[in-house]
């Protein structure tokens, strides 16, 4: 599904040039659950952003579903993104002014799904995430675990092929964290490809494969059994 080759990304300020990704190559197959690990500043998030097409690489190739996307413009990337990729963030990133239902509904609106169909699909996914009873609440009225489940519901409501999770359990206690990991595992078992950045060895164990980064390069790959 994903194949990147010699990917490079620099950050420049007037005096310093920082290399975030240094000729990084990797691939992820459809249906895989991959964890990316590494110390702070190793380029994990940069990689995830590029994979999610929120950012573009300076050099190298990124093939997504057999399409070279490295040099797509913003509009094309947004289009590809909204139909194929769901995001889960450490800090949930729900819109405070929208209710649970409305937050989850958002991606469907942008992909032009009809209103009746939206209600059906949002309810379906809220049900699955067991937060149906909270549908009319605002994010601030929910616990962290509940918020993250809403965020996951939003990420999957459009039935994306790929979910990118950036430390999804980082702001949660271990019990809620485990719930979230279970959810992701379920999704993966139903066929969704998942790439997750994490600091937690515990969480990483839910994946099939761990890619360890240091200074923008792959240093090790562990295949989980």
């Amino acid at each position, binding site marked *: 599904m994903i194949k990147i080759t010699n990917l490079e990304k620099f950050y420049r300020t007037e005096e310093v040039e920082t290399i975030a990704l240094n000729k990084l190559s990797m691939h992820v197959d459809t249906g895989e659950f991959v964890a990316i690990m590494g110390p702070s500043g190793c380029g994990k998030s940069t990689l995830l952003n590029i994979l999610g097409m929120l950012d573009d690489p300076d050099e190298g190739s990124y093939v997504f579903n057999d399409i070279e996307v490295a040099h797509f413009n*913003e509009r094309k990337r947004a*289009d590809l993104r909204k139909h194929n990729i769901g995001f889960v963030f450490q800090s949930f990133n729900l819109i405070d002014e*929208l209710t649970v239902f409305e937050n989850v*509904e958002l991606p469907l*609106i*942008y992909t032009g799904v009809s209103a009746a169909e939206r209600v059906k699909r949002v309810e379906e996914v809220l049900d699955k995430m067991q937060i149906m009873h909270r549908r009319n609440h605002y994010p601030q009225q929910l616990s962290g675990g509940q918020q993250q489940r809403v965020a996951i519901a939003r990420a999957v409501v459009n039935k994306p092929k790929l979910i990118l999770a950036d430390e999804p359990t980082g702001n949660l206690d271990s019990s809620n964290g485990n719930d979230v990991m279970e959810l992701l595992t379920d999704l993966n078992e139903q066929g969704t490809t998942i790439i997750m950045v994490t600091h937690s060895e515990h969480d990483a164990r839910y994946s099939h494969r761990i890619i360890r980064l240091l200074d923008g390069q792959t240093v090790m790959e562990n295949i989980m059994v």
Partner: protein
Amino acid sequence: MFKNYLKITWRNLMKNKGFTAINIAGLAVGMASAALILFWVQNEVSYDRFHTKADRLYNMYNRSRFDGKLWCWNTTPEPMRKSLKQDYPQVDQATRVTDAGFLFTVGEKHLTMQGNFVDNDFLTMFSFPLIKGDAKAALNVMKNIVLTESTAKRLFGNDDAMGKTIKIDSVDYFTVTGVMKDLPNNTRFKFDYLLPWQYYDKISNKGSESANWGNNDVNTYITLKPGVTEDFFNSRVKNITRSHSDIKDIDVFVHPAKKWRLYSKFEEGKQVGGKIEVITLFSVIAAFILLIACINFMNLSTARSEKRAKEVGIRKVVGAGKSSLIAQFMGESILISLISGAIALLIVQLSLSGFNNLTQKQLFIPYGSPSFWLIFTGFIVFTGLLAGSYPALYLSSFAPVKVLKGTFKAANATFSPRKILVVTQFTFAIVLIISTIIVKEQLDYAQNRETGYAKNKLVYTLMTGEISKNYNLIRNELVISGAAAAVTKTSAPITEGWSDTWDFSWPGKHEGDKIDFNVFNTDGNFTKTMGLKIIDGRDIDITKYPGDSTAIMLNEAAVKVMGLKNPVGQIVLNGNKTKLTVVGVVKDFVLQSPYDPVKQMVIQGPSAWFNVIHFKLNDNLSTAQSLKLAEGVFKKYNPEYPFEPHFVDEAYGKKFQDEQRIGTLASLFAGLTVFISCLGLFGLATYMAQNRIKEIGVRKVLGASVMRVTTMLSKDFLKLVGIAFAISVPISWYLMSQWLQKYSYRVEISVWVFVAAALLTTLISILTVSTQAVKAALANPVKSLRSE
């Protein structure tokens, strides 16, 4: 998607009530101001455009050179109409128009009303529709009269006025042959009734004079036949006066209806604008006020962008394109503009009567008109787009990678577009403040000008009904009864010039010189009644000097322009070659515009033309007592007419109405602009105080005093106001020097005006900003640091 936007907009508005209130208040006030001005402009622009024949309708003008300048004016000879209709095949219809003022009597009702004498064509040339009567025939008989609806109502109540009889001036009986819809608020005409020209011919008693091409004393209007162009007709009509008389230096031309209101200033024979300048100026002010209100919206929206940044990021991540975000933010601003528009409409409705008072208009909101709602909707959308464009582009451009990381700080407070916007606002506000001060100064200056005569306790009244016949009795009894200290009969009120001529010659006059004099008639006691100073010679006094029926007095300006060394005793010839003797010279006094130099003037001794009685009230009695006595005298000798005294000081005061109006409007809009700008400044200061709370905490922990922090926070804003001031000084100086150019009697722009404006603006901005700055400075650092 729309519902989603609406929801989030609404919730955002509710969540930030303070900002919402500032935004909406600013926009509503701005929109209301702009709307008021636009209503006014619309009214001005629509003047006399509603006539179905407006495109073919013209006013006849003369053009001639005198006093060394080429002048244009629209009073024309009476016989011109006949010639236009007979000799010019291009002319369709034509009418003369001149003023009428009569006492109407219906039963026990006596009313003095103002009307016009017109020719029969009038009613079919102009679109003043008759509710009753036949427009083609209503005025073709001498004793017919057409009333406006409200005049009919005043005279006959709810009875049908048609066919009823009205006594006019206790001499003639008229039959109502038409009732006209009341005049709209956008026409140059102003009359309660129309009378046929035949009646004017009868009472003006001019005989052969009415065929004189040398008397320019009536207005003439024509319609040209379809297809005849203005230029073509001008080429034909140019010599009409020459061809009928021995007057060889007058060109005649037409002025089209569409230019009457806004383009009727002529200089050196050319049309050079007119009221359009004021219209343009206020349209610019309207645009700027709206812009300033929109700037508030832009500033507050972008200042709060950090709060919206996360939402933008999330929406982008879940699939929103930039265009759908722009649409969302535009939608928000249009919604706010809609709410503001509704409030603005309310403000306009509430303030309209006051505004009408100020502008002397009868403006109203045409709620029933679909085009009004269409334009109003357009206005709202336009405002929404103007206010929302920049924030929409700014907010929608955030990169999700940055904003969602939580490290995002919107460009800091030194962000320059916002500063430019604040400077723009304050520049405009300060220009308005300075202009207002200068307008007021000019007004004061002119009002304090020495008039040259004693306005105080000086009263005049028009010579209606029997007054002329009983004048000597009235004069004697006014003095004997103790009502008046002195009485004089004149041709016009002392505050107005009703007559002028260039038909004088005197020893030493250069051949071909055409110098126009104001002309005044008096029967004597002129200087005593008016309190004028005689510089040389004496006043005209027919009782003492029987030869004084041909005596004249000159003013200083006349002596100067005539170049007379020893004016008293000199002989001046008038148009009829009558020898007039100069008996005195009076000190210059202001007759017409208090802004112009005093024009040369001839005061003639007793002749036929008298219209006004002036009398100086007795100093030993109260004004009320004197007036009561005077009223008794007038009632005795002129019983059918109401006694209507006019105080000269009030009449003189009316000369300043235009400037007063401009002054009031300027200060009103200056005030509003300052208000809106400060509202925005307050919003920014509030935001800044919240935003820098951590910085303030750190500074306080490190030992900064409240005073120091307050100063630091206020300084940034004051700097902007300072820059705005620096920009506005040359702009306002230039604009106001231009404005003052049109007054020959004018103030110098002094440095103090700018100092005053600077102090005022600084004070207002400090008050606006410092409340928030002090609040932020007083906050407990422990609390603010922990909250981060």
